[in-house]
């Protein structure tokens, strides 16, 4: 599992509330990623990071922000959650040409 953990694993929240998901890695990987996974879609990249305080947008970044203040943690924030952000969120790291994924966070926005 490349030492990747995500928290929380499940969360139910209400529309308009802020939500922060945490990804933690133990192996000092430089690149970290946040994806969302929805039925009928492949994994879609939200944001990624290539180092501390270095981040960039992915394909579906609207409504999301990220922060990486230290190598091991990559935070995904929904400033004001909407029902369209109900999804399963995966964090990943890359090692060479491979990506290794965390166990996922199931987020439900009511």
């Amino acid at each position, binding site marked *: 599992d490349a030492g990747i953990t995500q928290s929380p694993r499940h969360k139910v929240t209400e529309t308009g509330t802020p939500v922060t998901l945490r990804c933690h890695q133990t192996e000092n990987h430089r690149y970290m990623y946040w994806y969302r996974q929805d039925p009928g879609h492949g994994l879609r990249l939200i944001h990624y990071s290539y180092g501390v305080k270095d981040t960039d947008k992915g394909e579906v970044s609207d409504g999301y922000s990220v922060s990486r203040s230290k190598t091991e943690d990559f935070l995904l924030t929904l400033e004001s959650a909407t029902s369209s952000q109900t999804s399963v969120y995966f964090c990943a790291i890359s090692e060479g*040409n491979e990506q290794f994924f*965390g166990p996922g966070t199931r987020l439900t926005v009511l």
Partner: protein
Amino acid sequence: GESVGLHLPTLSVQEGDNSIINCAYSNSASDYFIWYKQESGKGPQFIIDIRSNMDKRQGQRVTVLLNKTVKHLSLQIAATQPGDSAVYFCAVPTYTGNQFYFGTGTSLTVIP
């Protein structure tokens, strides 16, 4: 940009039969391909990869075939077992290798 698609959203096979899962990609310059397996409630896990200088690569009970002419790759699972039931994705890195495009996945169900 790249697009990656899988041919069938679902596939059912009898236990012991061989399974073939297909994937098409759009960028002829793509030079590396990965197959992932995702079990219910878990994150995707790496199965096997192949570089564009190869047509075939074999792992344990899995084989990936690459046809660069038609931009198609397939994952073959021999003697499919119930534990093979999962969603299978192909993925193609971008030219920088730092981002990936993922197919939508084929859900494989193994019938005992």
